[in-house]
């Protein structure tokens, strides 16, 4: 049972403050809405120059220890970069790559860490392949498998929502091996043509792929440390929830600003529509939901990894941020009236992002059910 008498306190480091400022300015410059729209329509999955710039700012190695080429900070610092990116609907492999690095850190062998982490810090793209076609959020329920024959693993099954996979140098997939969950490293050269199929996903700023594992063979050394895998899956789940919460909080703030701009400039019946309480009051509710989510987010960042306290905080953040973005973006479409029904209105971009954020790693109801198991 959680100690509810303890007064929760958010801590915010100097590094977080600096990163938040740098990332906010970066996103304002590099990801105006016109760029986001271009990104959606672009053929290539990412803008390499932008990605290289992010790598050179050190953002891919924020939570990677210094011995592997990173900054040795925590995911709490990554949050301060992801939040402004969420506000500007930036579609980059930052979350995919950060989570893959976390998987390596938690369950990778020494050799795997030494090989891959420095590359990731320098700009190699990595991603996780965890979801399967049944759409179950329980990461430990895995149908895909690996079987060993001598020193060779043969994979079977299908993975879904493998984000940024076509650009990735490395995919880390969850499979069942000898009846237990396992993680395997699949390098780009092990992926034959046709193994990746572009998925049509609701958030068009994302690039997501279906991965057909059937017949892929890997050396047995591609397995991550089996003993550490269950804990690593748990860690990945929480890390993903934290970063998606940051993205959703940023998104909620972004779409609230879109709504406010419209409410201040659009006139109907000779009055600015923002003067009508029917629009003003729900917009305030959206603000309050976002503020609450943001408080939960930075508390989750403060206590991340701290046992039950950390898990409770991150699940609360995921539940609140998902709901906040869902509400703010849903109302934004409605409050834009006829324009809100068009593809040109930016509100839909945020609504799509909101559905994505909730669908990835669990929506509010899912996390409240998990919290009930912990709390009651």
């Amino acid at each position: 049972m959680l100690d509810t008498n303890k007064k929760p306190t958010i801590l915010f480091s100097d590094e977080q403050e600096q990163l938040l400022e740098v990332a906010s300015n970066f996103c304002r410059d590099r990801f105006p809405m016109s760029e986001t729209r271009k990104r959606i329509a672009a053929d290539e999955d990412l803008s390499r120059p932008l990605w290289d710039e992010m790598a050179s700012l050190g953002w891919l190695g924020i939570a990677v220890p210094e011995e592997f080429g990173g900054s040795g900070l925590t995911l709490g610092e990554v949050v301060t970069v992801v939040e402004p990116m969420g506000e500007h609907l930036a579609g980059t492999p930052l979350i995919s790559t950060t989570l893959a690095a976390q998987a390596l850190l938690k369950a990778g062998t020494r050799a795997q860490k030494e090989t891959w982490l420095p590359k990731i810090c320098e700009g190699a793209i990595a991603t996780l392949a965890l979801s399967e076609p049944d759409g179950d959020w329980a990461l430990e329920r895995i149908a895909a498998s690996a079987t060993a024959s001598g020193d060779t693993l043969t994979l079977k099954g299908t993975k879904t929502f493998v984000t940024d996979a076509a650009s990735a140098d490395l995919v880390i997939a969850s499979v069942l091996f000898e009846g237990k969950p396992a993680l395997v490293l699949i390098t780009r050269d092990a992926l034959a043509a046709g193994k990746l199929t572009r998925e049509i996903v609701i958030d068009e700023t994302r690039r997501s792929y279906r991965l057909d594992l059937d017949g892929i063979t890997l050396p047995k050394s591609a397995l991550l440390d089996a003993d550490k895998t269950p804990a690593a899956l748990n860690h990945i789940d929480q890390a993903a929830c934290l970063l998606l919460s940051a993205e959703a909080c940023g998104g909620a703030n972004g779409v609230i600003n879109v709504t406010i701009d419209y409410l201040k400039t659009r006139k109907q019946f000779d009055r600015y529509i923002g003067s009508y309480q029917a629009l003003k009051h729900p917009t305030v509710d959206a603000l309050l939901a976002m503020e609450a989510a943001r408080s939960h987010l930075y508390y989750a960042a403060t206590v991340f990894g701290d046992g039950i306290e950390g898990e409770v905080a991150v699940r609360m953040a995921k539940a609140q941020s998902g709901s906040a973005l869902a509400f703010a973006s849903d109302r934004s479409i409605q409050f834009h009236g006829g324009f809100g029904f068009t593809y040109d209105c930016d509100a839909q971009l945020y609504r799509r992002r909101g559905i994505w954020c909730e669908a990835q790693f669990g929506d509010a109801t899912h996390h409240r059910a998990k919290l009930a198991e912990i709390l009651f």
Partner: protein
Amino acid sequence: MSDNTPSPAELDAFRQEVADWFTANKPTDPGFLLPQSFMEVGTDEQFYFLRDWQKKVYEAGYLGMAWPKEYGGGGKPQVLQDIVTREMVKQKTPFMTNTIGLNWAGPLILNMGTEEQKKAFIPGILSADDIWCQGFSEPDHGSDLGNAQLKATRDGKEFVLNGSKIWTSLGRHAKHMILLARTNQNTNNKYEGLSFFLIPMQIQGIEVVPIKKLTGEFGFNQTFFTDARIDESCLIGKEGGGWQVAMATLAFERGAVGGQAGGHAMNSKHVSEVVALARTAKRNGKPAIEDVAIRDELVQLIIDERSQALNSSRARIKPLTQERPSSIPMSGKLIGSEYGRRLNQFALSLQGANAAYYVGDPLAYDGGLWQRSYFNAFSGTIGGGTSEVQHNIIGERVLGLPKS
């Protein structure tokens, strides 16, 4: 306030001292139902019990700790008072009944009052010898405070008061009132005709009439003014400058600025008590807490209760509030009061058929406490500007939306 910041060890020792004192000295059950807030003090026995308790806390040195020594305060760092207040909440001691004096009038007088006013009023506020009430709302002007119409007509060195104020908590026991009145009927802007007074209550021409609340209890009053004469020295701030003083007072009331004497103003219900209720209440023969829908709502309430504590924590971190610095301070009252109403309402629904019992029935859960506190929760969502007005204020001042 002292410059000597206590060391962590000193703070720990003080925490222990305070915890011990309240454990040893907090009052036992008086044998009658105590009010949950200063707005519900309806009988003399409730009032005297609560007044004596505040006096005891003050005399032990645990109230007004950060207020200046020369006016009866402790002259100590605020952090010590905060420790005491938290301990009182934690131990669920009765609240400090002179709330209006301690939290609104007192800070206002210390900030804007004359030396005479500070000397005259502050010690009695702390000791609860001088109870304060508030004359803001009027029967026809509740949330629209700026439209207050009670007349204060200048007559030489006096003002003559005519009109009526409503929701005067503690009005029957108060020695003084903070009063917002109209000194000029002919201003272009309605706000410019207002002045702010610190007035005596026991004078000719003031009559306090109790109002029966939706709970069936008393606590609020309507105050009638008929040619009541006060001296011009009762003014605080400038004649015609009452609106600014009222806004400063409301900032204290909303907790948006510090300076309060300390102590808690009400015994709020917490979600942990509703969780306990859900373990006792039954659904289909099983504890209600095993019901999926109930679990979902309970978790949401826990999240929402924690949001408020986390908002306060984040409000102290500048880089995390810089886009809209007033957002958290201005929304605390709206969020807290709406949460309280929702929490109490949910506590009723948990009781199954027994939700229909009321105070007085032996089968009423906790003596009908939740039924009563649900109704009383509306004092939070209506008083001090309704939730709807709060939405307008936040929409306009925080988000910059056009006025409604």
